[in-house]
């Protein structure tokens, strides 16, 4: 059974994914689409037929986006810069979180008596798990869940932008505070001096490997996720 609202939602999504169209543009065209559907319904067409005719008359997503992109050039650059800045902030947060989580895990492992080899593994695994976890959440929320547009809409309001940026900065500060003061003080008090030296050594090894692996991983991701030229799809 054809569900008109579902079809319109799918159509909206295909337009929203095009970089040239802003949310307000898509909303305006949806209002047009629904006017057209109502008009065609009066001519005794089925929902599916009205939807097909109406979307055909509006034009295909790629060429619409190309026209909108010409008008929205400034907004498009704002959008790109927003995501670059958001990416940098989130990366700083992930890095800081990974640092504190790995330090906490290594301290716990040192107390329970792991050797320096084991500590290196623990430090590395804790970092990888934190990064992986945050990336997984971001992927679920932004790419699959479609929250990206909501974040952007929130950031478009002045207080929303302050809230978002402020929230991330507070989280970075908080985890930095834990990383620099709380966890090291706990480690000093709880771990014997010799073990503490092992801990520091293995933390260095782990972060050395890490600082080589992360740029490599990001480079691979960038190559994998690079944008395709939209104009060539389906033409």
């Amino acid at each position, binding site marked *: 059974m054809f569900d008109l609202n579902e079809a319109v939602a799918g159509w909206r999504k295909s337009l929203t994914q095009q970089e040239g169209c802003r949310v307000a*543009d898509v909303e305006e065209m949806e*209002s*047009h689409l629904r*006017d*057209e559907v109502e008009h065609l319904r009066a001519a005794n067409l089925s929902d599916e037929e009205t939807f097909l005719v109406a979307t055909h008359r509006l*034009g295909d997503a790629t060429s619409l986006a190309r*026209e909108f992109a*010409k*008008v929205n050039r400034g907004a498009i650059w704002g959008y790109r810069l927003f995501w670059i800045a958001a990416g940098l902030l989130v990366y700083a947060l992930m890095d800081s979180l990974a640092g504190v989580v790995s330090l906490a895990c290594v301290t716990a492992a040192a107390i329970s008596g792991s050797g320096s080899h084991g500590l290196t593994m623990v430090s590395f695994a804790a970092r990888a798990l934190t990064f992986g976890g945050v990336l997984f959440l971001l992927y679920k929320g932004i790419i699959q869940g479609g929250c990206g547009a909501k974040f952007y809409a929130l950031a478009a309001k002045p207080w929303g932008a302050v809230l978002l940026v402020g929230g991330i900065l507070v989280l970075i500060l908080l985890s930095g505070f834990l990383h620099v003061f709380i966890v090291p003080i706990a480690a000093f008090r709880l771990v014997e001096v010799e073990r503490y030296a092992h801990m520091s050594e293995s933390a260095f090894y782990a972060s050395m490997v890490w600082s080589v692996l992360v740029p490599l991983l990001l480079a691979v991701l960038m190559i994998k996720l690079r944008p395709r030229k939209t104009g060539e799809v389906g033409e």
Partner: protein
Amino acid sequence: MAISKDLVAASATPLVLSILSQGESYGYAIIKRVRELSAGRIQWSDGMLYPVLHRLEHRGLIQSQWRVSETGRKRKYYRLKKKGAEALKKQQSQWVLVYSALKTSWEDQPCLT
């Protein structure tokens, strides 16, 4: 006979401005009006009207506002601004000039048709 693509693109701005000079309107109604005015011969791909409207708004010729329509759905209405009315006047004299130049030149050579 359909109008060529270039001419459709060139006439979009004066058409939109003239329609809005008769009172505020929204995308769907503007397209319907263009169809009526040209007896269906000016064929726009409906979606292409919106970038045209937005460009006119950027240039300060028209003004838009989201409102709830009589159908209960949100709709974006456009209104002509003073600068737009001036632009329309300029466009009118340009189109009349082009038209009269063409007409005169065709009157000089009646055997062409």
